[in-house]
């Protein structure tokens, strides 16, 4: 059904008239032109489509656009501020914590939601949280190191 739906996207209010059953992932990628969230599996199994919904990392391929009415959505495009990378992004660059880069936006947002809830995670806590997100190139050891570096860098402040 066509509805007008509003939510906050990377700090700005958006309202759009759209088939309410469409997925947040594809509304972001087509109507809103934000292609950082990727289509990987369509079943919430890989994490490539991860976005933050009120700070929580969720697979946007499993969310209807209607379900985020009134919520705060952050995509990878909304993480850097005024041209300055977020400390998690910086840590991924510093550690070369990526290869093909297709899973990277999802990895960074997953790490963001972990560190917001648990600013000083143990190594095991990082592993078990990041387990939801798949990387085929095998950048895992560097992603873990990047999350640890970012946790250090973020000490004392939640962002």
């Amino acid at each position, binding site marked *: 059904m066509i509805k007008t739906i509003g939510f906050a996207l990377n700090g700005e209010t958006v309202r759009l008239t759209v088939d309410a059953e469409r997925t947040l992932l594809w509304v972001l990628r087509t109507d809103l032109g934000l292609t950082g969230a990727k289509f990987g599996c369509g079943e919430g199994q890989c994490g*490539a489509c991860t976005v933050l919904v009120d700070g929580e990392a969720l697979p946007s391929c499993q969310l209807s656009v209607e379900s985020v009415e009134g919520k705060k959505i952050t995509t990878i495009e909304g993480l850097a501020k005024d041209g300055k990378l977020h400390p998690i992004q910086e840590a991924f660059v510093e550690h070369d914590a990526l290869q093909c*880069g297709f899973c990277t936006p999802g990895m960074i947002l997953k790490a963001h939601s972990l560190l917001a809830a648990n600013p000083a995670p143990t190594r095991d806590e990082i592993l078990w949280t990041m387990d939801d997100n798949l990387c085929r190139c095998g950048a895992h050891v560097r992603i*873990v190191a990047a999350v640890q570096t970012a946790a250090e860098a973020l000490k004392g402040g939640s962002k």
Partner: protein
Amino acid sequence: MKKEDVAERRPGVDLSFSPLSRREFLKRMGLLGGGLVVYCTVGDLPAAARAPRTGYAGANVPTDFNAFLRIGADNRVGCMVGKIEMGQGVITSFAQMMAEELDVAYESVDMVMGDTDLCPWDAGTWGSLSTRYYGAFVKEAACEAKAVLQELAAERLGSPIARLVTENGAIFDKNNPSVRVTYGALTEGKVIERHLTELPPLTPVSEYTVSGKSYRRRDSMEKVTGEAKFTGDIRLPTMVYARILRPPAHGARLRRADTAAAEKMKDVQVIRDDELIAVLHPDPEGAAKALAAIKAEFDLPETGIDHETIFDHLLSRAPTPSVAGRAGNLAAGEKEATAVVEETYLNSYVAHAPIEPHAALAEVKDGRATVWASTQAPFGVQDQVSRALGLSKEKVRVIAPFVGGGFGGKSASAQAIEAARLSKRAGKPVMVLWTREEEFFYDTFRPAAVVKVRSGVDKKGRLCLWDYHVYFAGERGSENFYEIANHKESVYGGWHMGPGIHPFAVGPWRAPGANTNTYARDLHLNLMAARAGKDPLAFRLEHLKDSRMRRVLSAAAGKFGWTEAVPPSGRGVGISCGIDAETYVAAMAEVAVDRQSGRIDVKRVVCAQDMGHAVNPRGATLQMEGCITMGLGYALTEEVRFSDGKLLDVNFDTYQLPRFSQVPSIETVIVKNDALSPKGGGEPAVICMGGVLATAVHDATGAVVRQLPMTPERVKAALRAAG
């Protein structure tokens, strides 16, 4: 040309190459926004004449050297390569090679990749060939361009060439450094064509300042911000998304398809083009709904073949073998042997499973086609699209943006042909994005394979017999590099066999064939070491003269802290080594096996490799880590299950890729060998993972797991058999 390079070529793809005409070359430079190009050529020097420098002796090489670079008036250097970037990191190492040989700042090099209109021809990005072969041509082009720039500078500055020095994109007179000119100032405003009379010398490795130094990935800024564009991210006005009617099983035949309901849906266009039945809609969800509205009936095949019976099927179809290597006399070896061990090892089908499924956006209009595709072979796609649409190659431009993982699976790019055919029929740009189910269904899997080995040791505990038979993995990695008096390697079919052998398509999967061969060889060697009462490392070294292999084994052992013991020692340490893409690699691992559950916990993997001159040691390290991590999957969890042509694993819920919690501590060593030109880096380390973990499981428990992946069930069965 090495045999393996020929084997990399996919059948059915026209790889003929004709050098660019001058007119085409100038057109290409025009597309780059100006003709500020150094165009030089050493007469009509055939590729063969350069073979000692490039390593290439045969055909199928790019000879349009000078299309590799463009020097702008702003002193920036465009480096154009027909290769694509899929995570392997050549976007960084090519820039290093260009900067090194042209003598410009690394930061001043801009990479242009995988665009058939802008880049020199290339067969495809596979076989760990980019750095070791294509890189040689990048260096040749830079070297020649530098010589031309020196000639131009001599004229401009009025100084003899002998007094000129190049440095960081400029040339000056060593007697008077203020007499200088930048490359950009020399090339400004014109296309320069010069003929050199002889090949200028390449920079000796001892003088390298950029190549051999570690650089971070140059694409990470784009990739951490979401700015990096993959094929599926590209949007064109009026474009639509396609979904295509697919059979439920391989070998299924369409009886009828009723598209009436789909045709009535708003904004939906139905296309029927021979066997291709597709629905188009402005958004992917609309296309999916329209596809669901098609009523289709298929006749399903009954083959009786599944993932368990496949091995008998394969053995029944084995062709006459070729002999990859032999020495001595097997009968003599049998006579000498005091102990003979005969085993059969199985390897399963595995998927490439890149996180980015195959994608293509095609715009066919005004007799031309532009296709963006996630492909490892943009020039191959250009050929295929030109044939599918009946357009000449010059009318087809293929662009491979960043590719979200390939591993061999995007050597085949059927999605690009589908998009092109649909765009031609629809008259608007069409995006084909395979779903994960389609990605599994149409993957060119690594083939299931069988290895039979019969080998023996003499009374001194030395290998005297090695009779090796490999079915459908191919010869890569089967070669014997040990000193064994009587050996023979028989190869029954390759990894690329066509219909009639496998129930679906198979193809190159990272180091094709070598994973199967290395697993079988190393597990079998562990059994022989056990039989001879020797430590597996010492046993290997007793049979090794090759100094490169001895060096990587000793480097791995040093890092690992290897201590001698006869397997099974109960410690759970494993060893594997091999040669792939001319790189020598050795790995050691430590595992714990839970006897109750059959679960294998990999604690630690150490890997050493000699890859000749490592252009970017950091990038090479990333590839080694990636190989080790990816290799955990085929060793432990990944297996494509199927029955009667229907795939039982079509998403990541049942097809288990390696996850964070399974990844061990990984340590890598690059054994320096600058005397050799760069060798392969993208594949070698993956070949050891089956062998190193299977030998570690054997060492831990005495269990011989004769099939990969070593699932808990297979481990438990092997434990029971071992008693």
